[in-house]
Structures are given as structure tokens and as C-alpha cells.
């Protein structure tokens, strides 16, 4: 008796779930037919390991949506879904945005591996995606529907090598990378290549050490590096681990200069690192000291108004730009048709965004300048702009 009851109960739940999915679908179709709105989908990691980056990016996207809520005389509706920092979920999320919500263009995602799994779905369905901060070169490779508003790892690695060699006059460098993080591995390799090229000395990289995301003790690696006394230490990685790493380096008495990448630009990096991160330098996408365009200023003021005096960060700025680039493409395409938007996106040239002037190249990558910042007095301070070659 009980068994049959539970079987029926389960069947009801199943059917309800399917019916729910079906209903949602119908509703979505209706709204598109009426087409009083244009939908932009967003898939970002709101939970899981990359939650911080995803949340910062979404802040920027929502801000842009508030400031520019319309295109072609229609309202833009954001559909934001969480991808849980999980590849399967990321693919599901994109499929859902395309089939169920019928979005015209998609923005996302923080984390290159998530972008890659979502990208394939979008490519198959023929819906364009604008990435905010996935810097791995593989993301746009062999995918005509993926674009991004950020620069890519090879450029970023080179920028820091150039900075180390030319500005800091470094002759030797050590590398500590997060071996489980594609971003860190890629950046470290490009830095190494460029630094050896600049110094002309194969032995200028004195040590290559590694750790894994989630590690908290780096003393063994750092003690080894201390002995070698490199001029600079290149240690790109998640801001949390990097801050701990630099802190432990200072406790061990290492006084080499630490260099990193754009992930360091989070307020938590300074909070966790404290005095230890004073003087570290990193490359990033955007600065408020030397606004590249008038849009930068606009973004900055709006961000401070909306998020109560919080410092704006690169990810919010990139989210903001991704939205604007997508909106601009819809405007130029003159319709909400994904194919037309894709073509318009690929023509994006000299677009003035908060993070600089964006021109998308034949791969769909943004060709734009990088900014070098350092930490001074508990704040991120602008150092210089490095133009692309």
C-alpha cells in the first residue's frame, strides 16, 4: 500500500516538474512573440569556488542595465543564472538561456573553463556570447560566436615581464603558480617566455614552484625561493591564496617584489594581505585614476552611488563593458536576431567602454591596453598604461 502510494507521489512530482518546465517554455515564447523586451542572458558563478568573481561581474552588469535599460526602443531584460562554478551546470545554464528564455545574446562567464563549456552550446545554437573576464586563449579559439572584452593571458604575461625588466630593472625572477588554476598556469608560462626573451638569459628564471587552489601553507615553497634571492616573484593566482602567500613571504623575510595578474584587484586581497601586500604590482583592465574614456568616469560615479562607496573593481567594469558592447551590437544589428547580433559584434571597432577602447579582432578577442597598478597605503594605485602591440 505504502509502496504504491510513494510511487504515485513520485510520479506526480515528476509530472509536475515536467509540466512546470513546459509552462515556463510557453510563457517565454509568448513574450518573445510580443517582443516588447529584448533579453540578454547572463551566466556567472554566483556560488562555488569562483563566486566572488561572478558576483563582482554581475554587479557591473546590473549597473549597466540600470543606466542603459533600453535599446531599439525596447526594454532590455536581464536573465541571470548561476552556473555553480561547475562545467555541466554552465552548459545547462547556457542551453536554458537559449531555449527556455530565448535570449538574443549572452554575457559570461568568469572562469575560462566555464566559458568553454558554455561556449560550445552557444556555438551550436548560433547565439553570440560576450565574455567579461575569461582570459584563456582557448575560449574564443575555433568559436565564431564567442567574443570578449578583456585582453588574453599571453598579452598579460608579457606586460608583467616587460614591467619587471624595464621598470623594475629585474635580472632574475621566480615563479609560483597555482597548478590547478588554468589562469595561473597560462599566465606564468607566458611571463616566463617573455622574461627570458627580455633578459636573453635562460637562467633568469631561478625557480618555478607551485601550489594548488585551497592550499594555505606556502612556507616550504617560499623558503626555497628565499635562498635564491630573485629580484621579482611572479605569483598570479586567486586573490585569497595570493594574499596569504605574500603574507607568509614577508614573515619569512623575503623582500623581493611580488607581481601578479588581474585577479588580485579585489578589496579582499588587501584586507587579507594587510601590510604585507604593500608595494606589490599587478596588471589589470581598468583604473579610476586615469580614466581612459568618458565612460570610465560615468561608470565610476554610478558604481559609487549604487554600491555605497565601495571601490570599483576590474570585474565590475568588465561586466559593465560586456553589457554595453552587447547592447551596442544589438543597436547596430537593428534587431534581436542572434545571427545579426553576432555579425554586428564581430564588427565592433573603437568602442568606448569603461575599461578602454575596445576593438574585437578576428578571434573575437579585445585588442586593448593593460593597466599596471600597485598597492600603496592600503589602496590600489595606478602606475602606468601598457598599450597593445
Amino acid at each position, binding site marked *: 500500500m505504502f509502496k504504491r502510494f510513494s510511487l504515485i507521489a513520485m510520479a506526480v512530482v515528476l509530472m509536475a516538474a515536467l509540466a512546470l518546465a513546459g509552462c515556463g517554455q510557453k510563457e517565454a515564447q509568448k513574450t518573445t512573440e510580443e517582443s516588447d523586451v529584448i533579453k540578454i542572458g547572463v551566466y556567472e558563478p554566483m556560488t562555488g569556488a569562483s563566486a566572488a568573481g561572478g558576483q563582482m561581474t554581475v554587479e557591473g552588469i546590473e549597473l549597466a542595465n540600470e543606466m542603459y535599460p533600453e535599446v531599439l526602443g525596447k526594454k532590455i531584460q536581464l536573465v541571470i543564472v548561476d552556473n555553480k562554478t561547475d562545467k555541466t551546470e554552465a552548459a545547462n545554464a547556457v542551453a536554458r538561456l537559449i531555449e527556455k528564455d530565448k535570449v538574443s545574446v549572452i554575457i559570461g562567464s568568469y572562469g575560462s573553463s566555464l566559458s568553454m563549456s558554455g561556449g560550445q552550446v552557444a556555438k551550436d545554437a548560433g547565439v553570440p556570447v560576450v565574455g567579461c573576464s575569461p582570459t584563456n586563449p582557448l575560449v574564443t579559439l575555433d568559436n565564431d560566436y564567442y567574443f570578449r572584452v578583456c585582453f588574453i593571458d599571453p598579452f598579460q604575461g608579457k606586460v608583467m615581464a616587460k614591467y619587471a625588466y624595464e621598470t623594475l630593472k629585474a635580472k632574475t625572477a621566480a615563479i609560483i603558480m597555482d597548478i590547478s588554476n588554468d589562469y595561473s598556469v597560462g599566465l606564468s608560462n607566458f611571463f616566463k617566455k617573455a622574461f627570458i626573451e627580455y633578459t636573453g638569459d635562460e637562467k633568469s628564471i631561478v625557480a618555478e614552484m*607551485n601550489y594548488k587552489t585551497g592550499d*594555505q601553507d606556502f612556507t*616550504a615553497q617560499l623558503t626555497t625561493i628565499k*635562498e635564491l634571492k630573485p629580484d621579482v616573484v611572479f605569483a598570479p593566482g586567486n586573490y585569497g591564496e595570493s594574499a596569504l602567500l605574500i603574507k607568509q613571504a614577508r*614573515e619569512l623575510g623575503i623582500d623581493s617584489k611580488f607581481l601578479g595578474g588581474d585577479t588580485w584587484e579585489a578589496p579582499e586581497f588587501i584586507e587579507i594581505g594587510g601590510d604585507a601586500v604593500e608595494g606589490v604590482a599587478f596588471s589589470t583592465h581598468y583604473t579610476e585614476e586615469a580614466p581612459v574614456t568618458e565612460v570610465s568616469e560615468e561608470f565610476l560615479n554610478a558604481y559609487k552611488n549604487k554600491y555605497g562607496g565601495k571601490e570599483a573593481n576590474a570585474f565590475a567594469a568588465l561586466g559593465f563593458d560586456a553589457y554595453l558592447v552587447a547592447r551596442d551590437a544589438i543597436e547596430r544589428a537593428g534587431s534581436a536576431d542572434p545571427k545579426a547580433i553576432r555579425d554586428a559584434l564581430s564588427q565592433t571597432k573603437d568602442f568606448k567602454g569603461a575599461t578602454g577602447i575596445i576593438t574585437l579582432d578576428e578571434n573575437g578577442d579585445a585588442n586593448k591596453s593593460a593597466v599596471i597598478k600597485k598597492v600603496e597605503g592600503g589602496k590600489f594605485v595606478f602606475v602606468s598604461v601598457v598599450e597593445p602591440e
Partner: protein
Amino acid sequence: MTFQLFLQHLVNGISLGSLYALIAIGYTMVYGILRLINFAHGDIIMLATYIVFFGILIFSLPWWLAFIISIILTTIIGVTVERAAYRPLRNAPRISILISAIGVSFLIENLSLVIFGGRAKSFYQPHIFTKIINFGGVSLMSLTFIIPVTAGILLYCLTYLVNHTKTGMAMRATARDFETARLMGIDINAIISLTFAIGSALAAVGGIMWGLRYPQIHPFIGIMPGLKCFIAAVVGGIGNIPGAMLGGFILGLGEIMLVALLPTLTGYRDAFAFILLIIILLVRPTGILGEKIAEKV
């Protein structure tokens, strides 16, 4: 490798090892009695650090008061977990209680993620713990002294409690055989609750020390320390308090020395702990200091 460099590695190893040891003691207490891997132990460590964080940030408590409150609240949480998730399954198959432990761990992690958010926060470090002392080129934090001393004091108190008091005798009896202990008039539920209270308080102390040493907290912070300290407890001899301490030091020193002496194997650091565990389980399942027990039939 110079002697000074070796000394620095040694200090690093002891510093990490004493942290592992501190947490492993809490693990071994619980395991000794219930024979259950308390997967939630690591998450209780995480909660302890968050309580301190919010105590200082929202209620602007002085740090020492925040620490004490955190230990008390964590103890309550630990006992509640046992009441709610483990006690109802006391007579269930072992597999059920193990799944329950995994379930509690995931519930705490996901709930914390929703409540606290996924962004890492910074743990407050009072200056007296982070003072850097330099001994002829070997630098260490004052915390490096404080942790082993704390662990030593706790170790002494616990061995006294377990070996020389009535409660301790009841604990040992419960650990050996539930039914017989019950027949002898021991309230095993009370004893188990007490064990969880002590275990959780130790987790809180361990968590706070961990936070002081590695001042970055997020909802998944407890997973790796939890697993590694369980391994330390098994290596030393599960249920054996000095053994847990020894296991912690072996694991901490081993990890540091692996990276120091064989830098090419750095990437396999986490694998080291698990391989050590598997070897110990196969060669000497009762651990280094554990006594050999005949298989119960």
C-alpha cells in the same frame, strides 16, 4: 642546502604540524568513542572562524571575548549536530551514519555559502600573535610558539581527564563497548554529548589558531584541514590522544619536507597525505601508537 635553510624548513614544518595536531586531537576524541568519521568536523572549524569574524565585525567585541564566545557557540553547534544527525542513527547500519555525516557537512557548507556568501573574508589578527621573531636568519611568528604550547596544555588536560577521572573512565568504557557500558550504569548519551562538546571546543580552538595563522576564511575553508587532520589522527592511532599529536607532526613535517627536498613533487603534496594514510591503513591499521585490537566477530 645550508643548515640555516634546513632549520627554517624544520620550523615551518613544526608550525604546520602543531596546527594539524591541535585539530587532530578533537577528531580522535570523537572517533575514539563513536567510530565515526565526523565529516562535519572541518565545517565546525569553519563556523568557529566565522563566529569570531562576525563577533569582531558586527558586535565590535574585543578579540579575546570573540574567541571565548566562538568556542562556546561552536560547542553548542557540535552537540546539536550529534543530537540531530548522529544520535537517531545509533542503531542504524554504519553506512547510514556515515552518509548522515557527509550530509551534515554538505548542509553546513551550503548553508554557510547562502548566509555568509562565497567571497573570502579576512580573519582578524591581534598583533601579539603575529609578531615576527628572527633567530639568526630563521624567522618565525610568535604564533609558532603559541600553537604547540596550547596543544601541549590541551593534551595534558585531556589525558588527565581521560585517564584519571570518573568521566574519563566512563568515556573509555563507552569507547570499548556501548552495551556493556550501558549495563554498568553509564549514561552513554551523556558521555557521547560530552565527547562531542569537548571535540567541538577543540575544533573551535583549532579553527581560531588556523585563522590566526592563515587569515583567509570562506565556507569551504574547513574541508582540507578536516581531511588532513583525520589522516593525522589515523596515522597516530585513532582514539589515542598523544597519537593524534604525533600524527599531526608527522604529516606537517612530511608535507613541508616533501616540498623542500623534492621540489619537482610539489604538485603531489595533497597526494602525499592520502598515500601516507593508505600505507598506514594497510601496514598498521591501528596507527603508530594504537594498540592492536582483535577483530570483533
